[in-house]
């Protein structure tokens, strides 16, 4: 149990990388990148978890409560939203690629260059 969350984060990371490397469609590859990214959130929040503790939000909890680590939560939180805009940027690149080359298959694209 004390290793399971870390190993699952690793599994998600590897699965995402595998998907990106074997992808035949750039939109699919961007989706796999989003999966890979989510592994970092799982890892960060698992590191910050404390058994039996509650969220570091004191609006409805006594200030003496034991809480989980807010620092990793702040890191993950901003990254979730910024990650989505970066996904948008990559999708925009895919649209441009489709316009320029008429295909979104990475294998066909590398053939075009040669």
């Amino acid at each position, binding site marked *: 149990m004390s290793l399971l969350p870390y190993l699952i984060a690793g599994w998600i990371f590897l699965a995402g990388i595998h998907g990106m490397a074997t992808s035949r469609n750039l939109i699919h590859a961007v989706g796999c990148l989003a999966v890979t990214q989510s592994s970092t959130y799982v890892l960060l929040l698992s590191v910050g978890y404390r058994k039996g503790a509650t969220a570091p939000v004191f609006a409805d909890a006594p200030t003496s409560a034991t809480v989980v680590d807010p620092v990793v939560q702040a890191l993950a939180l*901003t990254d979730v939203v910024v990650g989505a805009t970066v996904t948008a940027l990559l999708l925009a690149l895919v649209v441009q690629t489709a316009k320029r080359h008429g295909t979104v298959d990475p294998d066909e694209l590398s053939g075009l260059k040669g």
Partner: protein
Amino acid sequence: MTRRARLWVLAAGLLAVAALYAAACTQLPGFGGSWHPYGDRAVRAALQQRTANAVSSVNFDLRGFDTLGEESVLFASVLGTVVLLRRTRDEKRVPPEPVRVPAPLRRYGRLMLPVTLLIGLYVIAHGQLSPGGGFQGGVVAATSLHLLYIAVDYPALERFRPLGLYELADGAGEAAYVLLGAAGLIAGSAYLANVLPPGTFNTLSSGGTVPLLNAAVGIEVTSAVVVLLAHFLAQALEIEGEREEGRST
């Protein structure tokens, strides 16, 4: 390299990463352990600044400069997307064909727009107290506008969404964050220091500069998402290109 060879290289790389990562995991502090030196210090500092939501305190006070970096990444990626998805000279704008949407769905869309917008604003405004803040609430507020597209129709969204204004607000949100940081310098302290009085714990005005920075981020994220989606919508529904004859193919 052939596809087969590439797969072998990938498999070797993945296996090596898996082995190294698993070895590293055994050295990490156990899941759910009670040793969190940074967390404990951050919580103490947040309570000292009378910010009930320690996560917001870390984001907008203790690590405010880091969030400025995140903001800039967001701003830059929106800028990049806008540049990539702009209409080029050889493309023309064709109004999309109207879509028939059933009446109950239309009613739901019109009714839920203000409700969702309010929930978004509520999440932004209570960022320093309860879970939420500018990042989350901004996305909710931006989604509310797009109920017009997904439940009513595209022209309704276009009428309701002055895009130039949102592009301006995106920049204004980023600028407000930078300038609020400079307020710390003017007050004779460090950049992005929390110089305002912290107020009463667990009230809307608590936390000094936290609610202000939170609002700046809320404005920026809302307009950023609206601008992003506007360009994707325009590309997918309106813009049709002439076929680029013999160019780079």
